[in-house]
């Protein structure tokens, strides 16, 4: 943290000055999906509380989450969860000191983007098979 207005030291180059790269952009979206998932998990807790309250209230909340808007938020959260999951795994790989070569880092970015959509689709297929 800087010390507010009294601190006039220049900041190091930030988002506005760097050319977007695969690694930085996909990493920023790990943060964005993480913050956005707050809503998804608040809704899941609401749904769990409803299930533990009464069948009538559960039907109401369940109906809310499976309305067209509810489905949009739930499927969006599912994608965000898979993206954040894959991004988290990549960050753990980086933390262990692997995958810093540009080619590898770029490839992991593509895997995150493609994998998040693929895993979302697979989860939806699994849900379809279960119900």
């Amino acid at each position, binding site marked *: 943290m800087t010390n*507010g207005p009294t601190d006039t030291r220049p900041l190091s180059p930030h988002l506005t000055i760097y050319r977007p790269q695969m690694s930085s952009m996909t990493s920023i979206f790990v943060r964005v999906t993480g913050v956005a998932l707050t809503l998804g*998990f608040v809704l899941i807790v609401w749904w769990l509380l409803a299930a533990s309250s009464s069948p009538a209230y*559960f039907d109401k909340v369940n109906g809310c989450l499976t309305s067209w808007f509810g489905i949009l938020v739930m499927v969006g959260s599912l994608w965000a969860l898979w993206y954040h999951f894959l991004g988290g795994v990549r960050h753990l790989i980086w933390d262990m000191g692997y995958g810093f070569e540009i080619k590898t880092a770029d490839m992991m970015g593509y895997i995150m983007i493609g994998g998040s959509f693929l895993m979302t689709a697979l989860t939806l297929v699994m849900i379809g098979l279960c119900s």
Partner: protein
Amino acid sequence: MSFKTDKGRVIGLGSAKTGAQHWLSERVKAVALIPLTLAFICIIAPLIGAEHSKVVAKFQNPINAILIILFLYVTFKHLADGLQVVIEDYVHSKPAFITLILLTKFICYGFGFAGIFAVAKLAFSA
């Protein structure tokens, strides 16, 4: 766990706070969340939109209930950690900073324990 040297601690230089511990505990939670998230998706995703009796039956199985309770506990802690870092990075006014950090903790612990309570109630209801 502290990564400070004894001398560094005595003369009070270097990191004054608990950055290394925060960083390390974030990683521990992230690693734990790999299997727990997979369990969460397998258990919860098919239940969204399902009948009430099916949801109750699912959580009457202790393995499902325990996995979801663990998932909620670690996830909401991980969420509190993550939101704290985002606030530290972007919010530079002290009153707003303190307000947001408090709000984040209250919301994360509130919803986390509410979720755990709900799962426990479902698991224990006969």
